[in-house]
């Protein structure tokens, strides 16, 4: 009978990082992959964000040496209208604050690489640490005894026992299903189509630069750029019965028909090369991530970021925590469901948990304002109107009687106000809970000198009076509230309830 300390299903980023961590902790570890080699079943794109420099600096160093690597220093946003004309292009340039947020001023530096570069590298780290990798092996079932996971079964029927199983088998997670933890996602999952293009490397440098590109509005696509290629991913429709905001295959076709996209393709000499489709959980909150003898990591637990569905970092990060928890539980001789609940406690207290505190609000913005074509076109209009008010517009559009031009725009903008406030009320106001109490106080103190009577109060009394006058502010001004952290969910809703 084959028995290991830890059996890991899947050699994606989550599985490999868990295997590396487990092996380094001295656990006898095996990990299974259905592909002939890690990476060959995975479609994602692998834009790796800046926090990789904080949490996995050694991996990032290696990434910069991979063949497909392209640095990311900005995201270029292209918005097209319903006739597919490019109407709005801007870039996220970031400030010095961003750069300084992570070690070595890496706060504005991300990376893009192919999974065929990243996945084998991560698996190799695990193998070097002492884990055993078995490729071309599909795991088909879990072995359960009295409701406790005891191991897995491969397609050849072989039982492989373990103290702890880590399910890193991606969005469809055979392990989560066969153990009865869940079946389909039933709503929170999206599917993504991806089309890869081979390009001319020099032209990529000249035309694209160190950037990722996005296409929004009348056509949607996320363009991840590599050394001498790029791919566009389209879709991200939530798979539920009414297919809310679901953008089909036709949407990929509309992006391909965007003249500005075609122009970019010509400039970089792009040639379509590969077509892929993959599930991507995009949940308001992750699901229960443990049961007796088993933990779910990465996509299997629904960890991708609720704001924009990045998930490779989440897979590695949760893989690491799961393996550490396995080592802890095995050393105590208790791998029961109760013991493994420690895993969920640990990830909730980590950066990963923070990521999901505003999951509901973030998913709503994407679902309602960006993936939904009608709403996205509304956003485009609002953005266009908004840019006409900023001082740079002097250069072109205020070229006639200047104040008249400005006032035309201002009037039009004010006419659109209901549309703005609708967007604000629906999507932005719910995020107000996240403003730190310390920043709310900063704003109130800026107003204080302008308010007769109140300006003579001490700051403490001023806050007291404001909390009375504006009940919604009260939780922010509560002296016991943590200053540099969002208020806990529920603290605002409760107050609102009282008032009604």
């Amino acid at each position, binding site marked *: 009978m084959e028995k290991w300390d830890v059996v890991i299903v899947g050699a994606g980023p989550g599985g490999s990082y868990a295997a590396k961590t487990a092996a380094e902790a001295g656990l006898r570890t095996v990990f299974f992959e259905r*592909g002939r080699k890690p990476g060959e079943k995975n*479609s994602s794109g692998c834009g790796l964000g800046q926090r990789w420099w904080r949490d996995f600096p050694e991996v990032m160093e290696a990434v910069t040496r991979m063949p497909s690597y392209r640095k990311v220093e900005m995201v270029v946003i292209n918005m097209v209208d319903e006739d597919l004309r490019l109407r709005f292009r801007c870039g996220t340039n970031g400030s010095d604050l961003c750069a300084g947020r992570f070690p070595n001023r890496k706060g504005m530096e991300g990376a893009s690489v*192919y999974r065929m570069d990243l996945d084998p590298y991560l698996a190799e780290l695990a193998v070097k640490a002492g884990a055993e990798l078995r490729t071309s092996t599909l795991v088909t079932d879990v072995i359960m005894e009295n409701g406790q996971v005891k191991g897995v079964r491969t397609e050849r029927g072989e039982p492989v026992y373990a103290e702890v199983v880590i399910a890193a088998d991606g969005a469809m997670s055979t392990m989560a299903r066969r153990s009865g933890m869940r079946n389909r996602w039933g709503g929170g999952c999206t599917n993504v189509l991806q089309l890869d293009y081979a390009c001319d490397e020099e032209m990529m440098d000249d035309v694209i630069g160190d950037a990722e590109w996005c296409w929004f509005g009348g056509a949607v696509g996320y363009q991840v750029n590599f050394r001498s290629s790029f791919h566009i991913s389209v879709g991200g429709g939530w798979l539920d019965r009414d297919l809310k905001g679901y953008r089909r295959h036709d949407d990929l076709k509309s992006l391909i028909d965007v003249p500005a996209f*075609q122009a970019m393709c010509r400039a970089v000499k792009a040639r379509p090369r590969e*077509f892929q*489709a993959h599930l991507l959980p995009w949940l308001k909150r992750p699901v229960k991530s443990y049961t007796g003898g088993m933990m779910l990591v990465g996509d299997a637990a629904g960890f991708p970021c609720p704001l924009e569905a990045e998930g490779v970092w989440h897979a590695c990060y949760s893989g690491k925590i799961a393996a550490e928890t396995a080592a802890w539980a095995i050393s105590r001789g208790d791998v029961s469901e109760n013991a493994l609940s420690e895993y969920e406690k640990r990830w909730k207290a980590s950066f990963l948990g923070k990521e999901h505190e505003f999951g509901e609000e973030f998913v709503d913005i994407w679902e309602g304002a960006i993936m939904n074509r009608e709403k996205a076109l509304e956003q485009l209009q609002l953005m266009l109107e908004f840019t006409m008010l900023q001082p740079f517009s002097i250069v072109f559009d205020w070229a006639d009687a200047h104040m008249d031009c400005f006032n035309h725009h201002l009037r039009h903008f004010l006419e659109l106000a209901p549309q703005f406030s609708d967007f604000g009320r629906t999507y932005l106001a719910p995020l107000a809970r996240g403003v730190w109490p310390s920043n709310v106080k900063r704003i109130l103190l800026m107003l204080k000198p302008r308010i007769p009577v109140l300006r003579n109060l001490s700051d403490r009394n001023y806050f007291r009076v404001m909390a009375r006058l504006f009940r919604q502010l009260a939780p922010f001004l509560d002296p016991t509230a943590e200053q540099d952290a969002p208020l806990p969910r529920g603290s605002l809703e409760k107050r609102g309830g009282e008032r009604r």
Partner: protein
Amino acid sequence: MSEGRIDFKSLVKRVDADKTGDFISYDPEKCDGCGLCAVICPFKLWSVKEGKARLAPRYQELCLECASCWEICEREAIDFSYPRGGTGVVIEYG
């Protein structure tokens, strides 16, 4: 570069597509013919005939292994496992 000239099916690589085994199964009893599987499948391998979903008989040669049909089916009429280890779709630029 227009979409008309891109043949998506020719842009998918596979190994041993004849050795994948059966990896999608389907229970007509549970199916209510809603047709969402047909909408979601990128290559339209599902269709609805006489109120029941139908899977293309040689789906193994075309399936992208995304499992969207399994995810979308509220009646849980579709079960999806994967092709045998080491067979099926190969993604070189994922």
